[in-house]
């Protein structure tokens, strides 16, 4: 067993966990934050993407003990109450989701993309940057659109630098 302390969506938590516990298991099973999904076992699909100290990472390939002390944001921590994050709003507005399973990872990756690449994202950049996120439903057309407008909205709302 190992003791892990994390700040998750603004709350500090400490748990004794099996040393092999993955971050995604810590979030889903110990914190019941089931918005972070598991879609593969080879770090390919991005359904499990969360922010670790502000950077997008795949929580299925990180041991919880390896990020002891980190600040984690999951999809549940993105909206402020009923106020959606601009990227969440853009996915809804542009029909960037169907079954919703890839969506939390897509949104977390998209927010990180804006942090790294700015708020003016062209289609080519967005498609390249989505290399690590698979969606089987949408054919990506509307996801690309949603990220483009979401990034723009983040610029206007001043959330891009957060």
């Amino acid at each position, binding site marked *: 067993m190992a003791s892990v302390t994390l700040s998750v969506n603004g709350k500090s938590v400490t748990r004794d966990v099996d040393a092999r516990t993955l971050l995604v298991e810590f979030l889903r099973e110990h914190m019941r934050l089931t918005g972070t999904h598991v*879609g593969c076992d080879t770090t390919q699909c991005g359904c499990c993407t969360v922010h670790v100290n502000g950077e997008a990472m795949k929580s299925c390939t990180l041991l919880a003990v390896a990020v002891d002390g980190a600040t984690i944001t999951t999809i549940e921590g993105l909206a402020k109450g009923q106020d959606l994050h601009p990227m969440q709003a853009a996915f809804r507005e542009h029909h960037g989701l*169907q079954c*919703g399973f890839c969506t939390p990872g897509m949104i977390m990756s998209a927010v990180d993309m804006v942090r790294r690449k700015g708020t003016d994202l062209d289609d080519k950049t967005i498609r390249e940057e989505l290399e690590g996120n698979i969606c089987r439903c*949408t054919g990506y057309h509307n996801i690309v659109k949603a990220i483009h407008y979401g990034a723009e909205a983040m610029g206007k709302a001043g959330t891009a630098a957060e």
Partner: protein
Amino acid sequence: MSGTGIGARVLRKEDFRFITGKGQYTDDVNRYGQAHAVFLRSPHAHAEILGIKLDAARAMPGVIDIFTGDDLAADKIGGLICGWMIHSKDGTPMKAGAHPALAQGKVRYVGDHVAVIIAETQAQARDAMEKIVVDYKVLAPVVAMADAVKSGAPVLHDVAPDNTVYNWALGDEAATQAAFAKAAHVTKLDIVNNRLVPNPMEPRAAVGDWDSGQDAFTLYTTSQNPHVARLVLSAFIGIAPEHKLRVIAPDVGGGFGSKIFIYAEETVCVWAAKKVGRPVKWVADRTEAFLSDAHGRDHVTHAEMALDASGKILGLRVKTQANLGAYLSTFSSCVPTYLYAPLLSGQYDIPAIYVEVDGLYTNTAPVDAYRGAGRPEATFVIERMVEVAAREVKQDPAEFRRRNFVRQFPHQTPVIMCYDAGDYDAALTKALEMSDYKNIGARKAESAKKGLLRGIGFSAYIEACGIAPSAAVGSLGAGVGLWESAEVRVNPVGTVEILTGSHSHGQGHETTFAQLVSERLGISIDNVAIVHGDTDKVQMGMGTYGSRSGAVGMSAISKALDKIEAKAKKVAGFVLEASPDDIEFKDGKFSVRGTDKEIDFASVALQAYIAHKFNGQELEPGLKESAFWDPTNFTFPAGVHICELEIDPATGVTRIDRWTAVDDFGNVINPMIVEGQVHGGIAQGVGQALLEGAVYDASGQLVTASYMDYSMPRAGDLPSYDVGMTQTACPSNPLGIKGCGEAGAIAAPPAVMNAITDAIGHEGIDMPATPLALWRAIQKAAPRAAAE
């Protein structure tokens, strides 16, 4: 209410929970005291099980129990079933080998289920699994279809000594022969339809629960059709009678057909919950999904098309081998037969067609319906044939198609289907315009200057959706009816709950179904809730597949709404002191014709429940109606997709430059959602054509069992799509809907392959046209030119 009614681009009601991480998928369900199941799977494609040693595994930490096929047999738990009887052309019934949920004596594919370990945690179950010792006698496997039918081939099931499930045929052989006898030209083609793995992003999962006080079971599962799951688990597998078995499919993260079927894992989880007296949860990892989800496609076909001197199609002859895998999955038998051959007429007036299909067993995962199910395979055959025929007789492929289009409706094809409505010229004309076809020559020249090969490919597809008229499918061997049910519950305050047997796994039913109610009752979609996916709430239903939820599911709702309206008019009549015949209902208001007396829908609902203005002898209180809708025909969505692409001959890399889709889905409830369905379908079709392929090696190992090995389409592999529509209302249901869920996946593969073969100038390439395959094909055609 036009803002949220039929035809409006309403944003989806379900999205809020998904974008905030509050969706409830099966893996998000956690029952108090639950244990975890892990399945020990066969590492061999074909082997006898001589013995299983469990002692060491049982002694591992956290292990609660371990079960094998013997335990299921001892409890008289039946095997998995195939629900569609197909007869061979000699009249004999198909040869269905037994399909136990846990192997009994023999394993038949890599991934076949040998034992289940139930432990306190998933990790402990996995650790214990390592300690199970299985004594296998490895048998020679049959992997390729060509080998399955060789004499002396290893036999999978004793009931099928030649590994043949059926030799089935459809059409008029003599008439087709006569057509070929008078042909001026015959086009011949060998066609491979590659094996795919559906890969919804949510892996399959199940949580079984047993209530000892009631002796009743609950199964949470990733299902497109929970009622069918309950029916099969109850009536055929024998878990419990239906009133003691509740099946809940919460949010489902995509399915594409693969979550229609009733699999071993959910069967075992729900049964084991009683055995161990604890809830039992299983979640597939991705490799398990690759190994054990039903795969799709996998046909090898030889086709011949007879033409007269003017390029009119006289006849079509098709011989297909269909790989059904190691066992018959739930609906596998109908996919390469009745969902395939009846679509081989395409959009064309073809006087004679004859199709033969051999369904074969191999030591590979079971194959069943995957997005389109049979119709993509048929479309690939006819659209490749038409394109190649046009090339051979030196006609423009668009005009060649136009010359052969069906123009009179209804149109009876020689292969069962009666097309009810359509306008194929309109879609083609619009697609040619949108794609700027007239300037393709200039664009090809432009690409050539850059050293690139540009190609354009057409696909004028048709599909049979709105599955399906019950009596008709019954006569073809279906074990179930394919109607849909609906119940409309109006609450006393005028809000509405719709209970439906359809079940969304991404299609947006909570929005589109509410739009229908909004349109009909004049209430806000915010006042409508859609209830689905729970057999304790919705009495019965057939689920979501075959693009049926709009055409069949919403038609059932519409029929129930007719009854609501009729009853509400009676209530309004009492309140407004007028005959129900004089009551008009419009924009959510009931009024007495020719007067200004009116009452709104919510007030009528309240009056129906307080029942003060009428007595129970005159009218029953309350406002709740139900309906079953059984379609009168299949629906026939159709359209034209045009793919334009560039290939770099030096690398074999393909870039899709533009994609034009013009689809006729009949009336459309929500264009935003329909376009999304088209996008997703095209992506899967492009994936099949360029990237995806399930590959077994000679020993029967699946070598593409992860996302490192199986190439899923990613954003960078795909273009944006130019989507347009034409509309002919469907006469076969009250809403005029044809369905849109599968069109893209059906239309796309031949469009891509026709474009690729146009670009490289020969037909010698199969799907997936990966860079390596394409590079080789280009080398084969012009080795020096490419090397220069």
